[in-house]
Each structure stands twice: as structure tokens, then as C-alpha cells.
């Protein structure tokens, strides 16, 4: 079962990073369920924080997806990130003992799925609206309206590579803001 999930997710991520958007969306959906399961179990006393953290980690993983090494199991990679982000969360909240929290449970990787998304407290749309105009424009046209890079370039007068750079920078800035917004 775990092995099946691993190979399914691995295939989806590799296809996604090769440009298959449908596979990539499926990968992120699977991943979000695993993250939700992971965080629900570990943030019992703060259930309201779970969905925000899931969203923050999704954007972070998207931005750093190139760090996935095809020779490694996807679940181990995602688990390491999920764990790191949990420690980071505790540290920012200054939860006592957050630094020493025993979460080195490598055996129990991302194991349980949870498909019931609660509402996030923090609204990504609002954060997006606060980005520098060029970045916001690039993200809105391509990532929300679904224009191709070429179409977006024609529409804004930015070059294609600038559109890509602005999307990338915008999503990075978004990740930073999500992390800081607490």
C-alpha cells in the first residue's frame, strides 16, 4: 500500500516536472492529503492552524520542487520538508520544546491521508494582491487565468523569460509572506 502510493506519487511528480499539469495537480492533491494527515495528528491543540500550514508547505514544495532527486523516494523527500516546516512553525510560535520536539519518526513517514480540507484562516488571494504589480500580473494571467507564457508575454509586453521570472519570484515572495503571516 505504501509502496503503491510511493510509486504512484513518484510518477505523478516526475510527469508534473516534465510539464504535465494534470499529473502535477494530482500529485499536489495527494500530497496535501498526506500533509493534512501529518499536521492534524501533530497539531491537536491547534486544529485551526492545520490548513494554513498545509497551504504554506504546498507553495514551498512547489517552489523547491527541483530539489526532488528522482533517485530518492518522494515520500521521504516530502516527509523531510513536512517535518522541517513543523519545527519551523513551532519555532516561530515559540512553542516550548519546539526545538527539541521528537519528530524524528522516520519510520512513520507521511502515512495517513486526510481529504477533509478545513478553511484556511489566511487568504492567499489577499496575499497575492499585495505582491509587486509585475509579479502579481504574471501570476494572475498565467497561474489563475491560465494563459500560456507566450500569451501573457504578448498581453503585458514583458518578455517570456521575464514572465517566468516574475511568476517564480512572486511565488517565492508569497511563500515568505505565508511564513511570516501568523
Amino acid at each position, binding site marked *: 500500500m505504501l509502496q503503491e502510493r510511493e510509486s504512484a506519487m513518484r510518477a505523478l511528480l516526475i510527469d508534473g516536472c516534465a510539464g504535465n499539469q494534470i499529473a502535477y*495537480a494530482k500529485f499536489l492533491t495527494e500530497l496535501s492529503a498526506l500533509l493534512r494527515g501529518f499536521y492534524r495528528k501533530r497539531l491537536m491543540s491547534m486544529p485551526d492552524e492545520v490548513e494554513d500550514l498545509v497551504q504554506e508547505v504546498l507553495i514551498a514544495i512547489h517552489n523547491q520542487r*527541483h530539489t526532488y532527486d528522482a533517485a530518492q*523516494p518522494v515520500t521521504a523527500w516530502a516527509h523531510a520538508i513536512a517535518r522541517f516546516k513543523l519545527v519551523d512553525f513551532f519555532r516561530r510560535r515559540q512553542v516550548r520544546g519546539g526545538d527539541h520536539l521528537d519528530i524524528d519518526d522516520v519510520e512513520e513517514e507521511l502515512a495517513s491521508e486526510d481529504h477533509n480540507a478545513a478553511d484556511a484562516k489566511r487568504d492567499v488571494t489577499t496575499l497575492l494582491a499585495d505582491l509587486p504589480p509585475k509579479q502579481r500580473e504574471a501570476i494572475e494571467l*498565467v497561474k489563475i487565468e491560465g494563459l500560456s507564457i507566450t500569451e501573457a508575454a504578448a498581453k503585458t509586453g514583458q518578455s517570456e523569460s521575464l514572465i517566468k521570472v516574475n511568476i517564480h519570484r512572486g511565488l517565492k515572495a508569497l511563500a515568505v509572506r505565508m511564513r511570516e503571516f501568523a
Partner: protein
Amino acid sequence: MKTENLIEMLARQDTRVDHRRLMLHWLGALGVGLLLSIAVFVYLFRINPDLRMLMENIWFWTRFAFIASVMILGGWMFAKLGKPGTAHRVPMWLAAAPFALFGLLGLVLLFTAAPEERRPMLLGISWNVCSRNITLLSIPIFFASVWVARQFAPVRLRFTGAMLGLFSGGAAALMYSMYCPEIAPTFVAIWYSLGMLIPAAVGAVLGRKLLAW
């Protein structure tokens, strides 16, 4: 925004990862840092006119091997630490290995030398500037390495900071060794090590701040 909408957004258009282009970016950044360090080197120092003669000495090459191993090891661990799937497998003690080995060599030579030779072995002619000069040269490469590390996903921030510091310190020491005539292992084991460990310590202290993502 609901999570499913966020996923839709992230997965729409432009999901391709171009590893070759990314690699060029990182190498480019490191190259810029290296060039700036070389500029500082040219401005403050120069290639030792007696370098050829120094190269005939075996201790020149032990020094070279020591510095190169620190740099390569630091760079290799830095690269592993940037990827969450492999980061937990990098053992910390490995970074200490070249220092321990070379330190041992320095100690043995020190204790087998005649008492009146010990002082020059320890201090050479430039002990008071050596570590500082190496640290100085490492600054541009250090910043370039931080920029590169920030493109990755380090999960052990202090450790990663230390390794990128070791990498920059190693690169700086390698450059400095083209100028500095001190090749006695005891001297190198103290002052070169210190020069490479200062950027490593700075990286460890600032790691959490500089590398958070």
C-alpha cells in the same frame, strides 16, 4: 483561497523544471562570487613569484591537498544538504575529518622538531594576518553560496550554513595559498584551519536567519 484552488493555481501552466537552466544559474552565481574573490585577491595580494619553487616542496602539496579536501567536502555536503531527501544522511563528523588528520600531522611534526624550531613552525612570519586574509577572501563566495543555498530546500539550516562557510573558506584558502609562502603543516593546521573555520562558524550562527525558506 481554498486548498484545492491553490493546487489548481500551482499546477496551471509552467510546471516544467529545467534542471540544466537552474544549474547554469547556480554555477553563474558561484562564478560571480569567485570572480569577486579573485578581484579582492588581485587587489590585496598577488601570485607568489616564487610559486614554482614552492611547488617543488612536498609540503606545498600537502597544504594543497588539505585545503582542497576541505573545499570539496564542504561543497559536497552543501549540495547534499540542499535536498531534503538526502540531507539527513550527511554525517557531521565527516566535515571534521580533514582538520583532525592535518592537525595530527601538525602535532607530530611539532613534537618531533627541535625545541628552538617550534616557535617558527607555529607562528611562521604571518600568523597574525593569515586567518584574517582567508576570511576576507571568502566573503564574496560566501554570499554567492548563500544565494545558491536559498534556491534549495535545506532542512538543517545551521549545518548547511556551516558547510557553505567551509566551502567558501576552502576556496578562499586555496586562492590565498597561491600567495602565502607558509607551507609548514603545523602553521597551516592552525592558521589556515582557523581562516576556513571562521566563515563556517559565521554560517552556522547565521544559518537559521539566512537560509530560512
